[in-house]
């Protein structure tokens, strides 16, 4: 058999081996068997020297062609096998993607804190600061300086948690169960603290816990959250109060909600009013949610009474202002249709995880 035939035979044999190789290892064996040091093609290349000189260029060219063919075939086969291997791997990795994910859940923020932060941010956007005050307050800050006269019914032990006054000079109270110190029933006392210490302009809110002797039930908690607001500046009008609260109401309840201002009475503001927001369920038509009125009461407010300014040493001729108090639980209850306020204080994880 001449070299040319031999080359052809090797080529056929090797190409067949390549085609038959089922994996990269088998392919590698074929490569070594042909192109390795002891490979068939290598061996025949080595014999090239023995080829007569006149045939050598022709044989050399043929040998190179065979070699190139084999190399190409191996490379192509390699790529194909790699692709097959990857495909096999991917097929093997395919999974039921409806299986649940491996989940890491962040904790949740308490609903009241969420609403409170949202409310804070709305007022911050209007240039307000956030102030705080003590939970245990004196009757002076909770009532007197807020223009609620001595013996005003709102001071009754029925509506206020009084606490034991440990001060040696604590005076005897005329009414059983009352003292000069109490758990604040409203955040309004912070108004007085701030006006005593800051010069106008004052634009502040004070969100915080307040206490009233209401037995806990679906609609009451003895401890809840109020947000007080106070503005004292030159030229503040009742219209400014309305504009501010309208903005707040739309931000917190939605742009489509209307407000209603009903004149009311609070000792520390005059004129005073209660503000309703149109019912989000029936949009004012009247339904069970709004007790057929079309309106939901959300807050109390008014122009700061000059007597309060007097207590705080602010000139009520130069400055005017407004104040408001919003129940955070009330806002939350209206927005989330809370079935029972006690859920907010039980620490029930099944509830907390919904916040």
């Amino acid at each position, binding site marked *: 058999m001449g070299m040319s035939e031999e080359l052809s035979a090797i080529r056929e044999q090797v190409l067949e081996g390549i085609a038959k190789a089922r994996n990269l290892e088998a392919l590698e064996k074929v490569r070594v068997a042909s192109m390795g040091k002891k490979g068939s093609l290598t061996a025949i290349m080595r014999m090239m020297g023995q080829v007569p000189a006149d045939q050598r260029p022709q044989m050399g060219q043929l040998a190179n062609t065979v070699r190139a063919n084999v190399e190409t075939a191996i490379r192509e086969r390699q790529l194909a096998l790699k692709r097959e291997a990857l495909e096999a791997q991917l097929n093997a990795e395919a999974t039921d993607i409806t299986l649940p994910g491996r989940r890491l*859940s962040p904790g949740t923020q308490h609903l009241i804190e969420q609403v409170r932060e949202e409310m804070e941010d709305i007022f911050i956007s209007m240039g307000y600061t956030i102030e705080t005050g003590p939970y245990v307050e004196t009757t002076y800050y909770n009532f007197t300086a807020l223009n609620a006269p001595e013996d005003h019914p709102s001071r009754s032990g029925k509506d206020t948690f009084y606490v034991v006054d440990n001060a040696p000079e604590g005076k005897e109270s005329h009414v059983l169960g009352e003292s000069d110190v109490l758990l604040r029933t409203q955040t309004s006392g912070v108004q007085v603290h701030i006006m005593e210490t800051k010069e106008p302009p004052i634009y502040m809110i004070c969100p915080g816990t307040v206490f009233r002797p209401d037995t806990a039930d679906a609609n009451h908690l003895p401890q809840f959250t109020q947000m007080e607001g106070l503005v004292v500046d030159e030229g503040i009008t009742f219209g400014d109060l309305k504009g501010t609260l309208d903005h707040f109401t739309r931000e917190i309840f939605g742009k489509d909600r209307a407000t209603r201002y009903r004149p009311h*009475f609070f000792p520390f503001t005059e004129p005073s009013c209660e503000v309703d927001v149109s019912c989000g369920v029936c949009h004012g038509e009247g339904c069970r949610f709004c007790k057929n009125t079309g309106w939901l009461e959300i807050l109390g407010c008014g122009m700061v009474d000059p007597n309060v300014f007097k207590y705080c040493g602010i000139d009520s001729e130069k400055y005017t202002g407004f104040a408001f108090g919003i129940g955070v639980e009330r806002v939350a209850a209206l927005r989330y249709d809370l079935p029972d306020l006690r859920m907010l204080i039980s*620490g029930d994880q099944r509830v907390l995880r919904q916040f």
Partner: protein
Amino acid sequence: MRVSYEWLKTLVDLPQDPKDLEREFVRTGTEVEAVERVGANLDHVVTAQVVSKEPHPDSDHMYVTLVDVGNNNVDKDGNPVPLQIVCGAQNFNQGDHIVTAMIGAVLPGDFKIKKSKLRGVESCGMNCSSRELGLGDDQSGIMILPEDAPIGVPLTDYLGMSDVVLDCEITPNRPDCLSMTGMAVEVSAMYDTDTHIELPSVTSESGADASEQVDVAIADPELCSRYTARVVRNVKIGPSPEWLARRVTACGGRSINNVVDVTNYVMYLTGQPLHAFDLGKLTKEDGKYHIVVRAAEDGEHIVTLDGEDRELTSDMTVITDNGKTPIALAGVMGGLDSEITENTVDVLLESAVFDNGHISRTSRNLDLMSEASIRYERLVDPNGCASVADIAAALFEECCGAEVCPGIVDVYPKVKEAVTITLRPERVCALAGAQIPEEFMVSRLTRLGCKVTPADNGELSVIAPTNRPDLTREVDLIEEIVRLWGEGDIEATLPAARNHAGGLTSDQRQIRKIGRTLRALGLNETKSYLFASPDDLSKLGMSEEGRGVPVKVISPLVADQSEMRRSIVPGLLRSIAYNLAHGVSNIAMYELGRVLFGHKDKSQPDEPSYVCGVLVGRPADDAWNAKYPAYDFFDAKGIVEGLLEALRIPKVRFRVAEPEQYGWLQPGRAAEILAGSETIGWVGNIHPLSLQNFDIEVPVIAFEISVASLLRLSQKDLPIVEPPTYPGISIDLAIVVDESVTAEQLIQRLKSAGGKLLCDIRLFDVYRDSLRVGEGKKSMAFSLTYRADDRTLISEEVEKTHTKLVEKVLRSTGGEIRG
């Protein structure tokens, strides 16, 4: 205040539809809590006539009647047929006009009229007494109507008693609105319309002048600013006329008898509480009765009208019979002994004003509210006393057949003067932010009873009526004008000033960050009561030291909420118990809030904030692709470390929490959290014995950290460091040491031995095995990373450093390399 629409209509012009009135009330500041249709509950109750009356065949005291109810009962041809009704009343005759409740009627007390048989005789309705109809107290027999009464007309139509009652919430500043005349004035200002209030007056007087029969002394004018008394004789006690009973009932009162009803009626009409004493029950001395108003004596007793024996204090005021026996608790309730009874002949009428503060305290101390006390608390106008007494006297004459004695005894030491207020129209507009015309101000204030006089300088001089104690300053008038103008009509604006900026303070931002970080670390935020039980700390085993004295609530709602909390932990333990009891076993939550540390000699406590977290169970139940080990000490510690790292708190260390000081923690699983040398909190397993006291039988790991410390120690604006340019070389090293050597000590040694090149120490395994490692020993395996900032380290250099480190650490810890 319950306002009868029909009654109010007699005092002022009203719109046709009560709904309009309701809307206008709400618009101008009188909240309407309910609108009630009165009379609607007397459907199927009609006027009737007795056709026949026969004795019941089987009863001595009942009659079988046939009653003509007109077209309300007809045969198939439409002809009226009388109803057969068995009746037990004795006071009627054939031909009498009566009131019959037919089948289907529902009488007050949810009494349904049905067809029934009484001792075998069929009865198709009931002939009614006024008491059964809720129209009065008379139960002596059925109601007999005048002979000219029509037959078969609905009773409500016949009596004209179909009415609408608006239940109005009157704010405490408006005592004037606790009366029908006050409401009429309010309505006249609302609608800018006239009132037509006509008050009755006495037609004839007889007998001795009141002042010859009674004298009045006020011991302390502070307690009683005015006391007037009139005397009427020979009253005929009986049921009230129907109109009187109806009006008293409409206002929420109960018709008792004509004398009592008159006093209540006049109170509802004018807002002035009245009291009628049975004059015959008082003592005559020197030919006169002597009324003395004085402070009660401590321990003095009176039995009030409601039958309660009440012990009085010196802060209360009593009306006494000549200074001795109390006959009324002034301004709150009359005494039982001098009450009007069916035997009363002569009446002393009191129309007086008592101090609001004393009344308010008395009412609160005795837990006794009355229509009178509600009005006195809110201030009654002393200038009205005498004329109101006259109205009552006229009605005694009209409704009780009384002979009115001339004159009035009137003790009024200091007359209350009307207040003159200067009103600047431009101030009204400036405060409202609206252009309200001056004419509007003048007309509406005048409607409200003010005398308005313009001054030369454009101001208005306003004299407010003395029954409006809320009108003393310019701003009080502004309020009236604004509410009548309509708060809804004022244009909404925003404050124009550009002179301020707001925002969170840096501490407030950090507090939000604390919450954000803890939530990112998997804790749910919760809230618990600031109320605590007095035994909370002792149940927990937490020392009171450093936690002040408890703030004690004087009248707690429940015994286990009688103090304010001094630690957040007990509240969270209660929440854990709640969750466990409801089948929730994996719990991870935190609360950031105040605790209250009281002072022995100060009124107000310190109120520092703490953040407290608890872990129970495990992060989640096992899933198909994830297994979650139970929470342990290191989960809580890891959360604390994560929080302190997020806040950039420097020099954080954990130190063994000594059991003597941390009794609520499980020894050996309890750590103090330090930043530098400052203890800022603790973390550890709650002691199982403490948990038992809170009904918890599973491990709880908790931490509590001072928020003030976190805010003070947290660092801001730390410079950002570029990541290393050159690669590091990591070498693993396992060292076997005695159990007594802590991880902190070993790491400290590694750090100091590693020098500048050692840039990271990671503990990746702690291994104990008595055979392979040795008894009382442990192996700790570290991955140490060496790196230089300015070059790629060559292995020789690292080996040299590492060998030196190993030598040093082994020498200083007595450890050995684990092969």
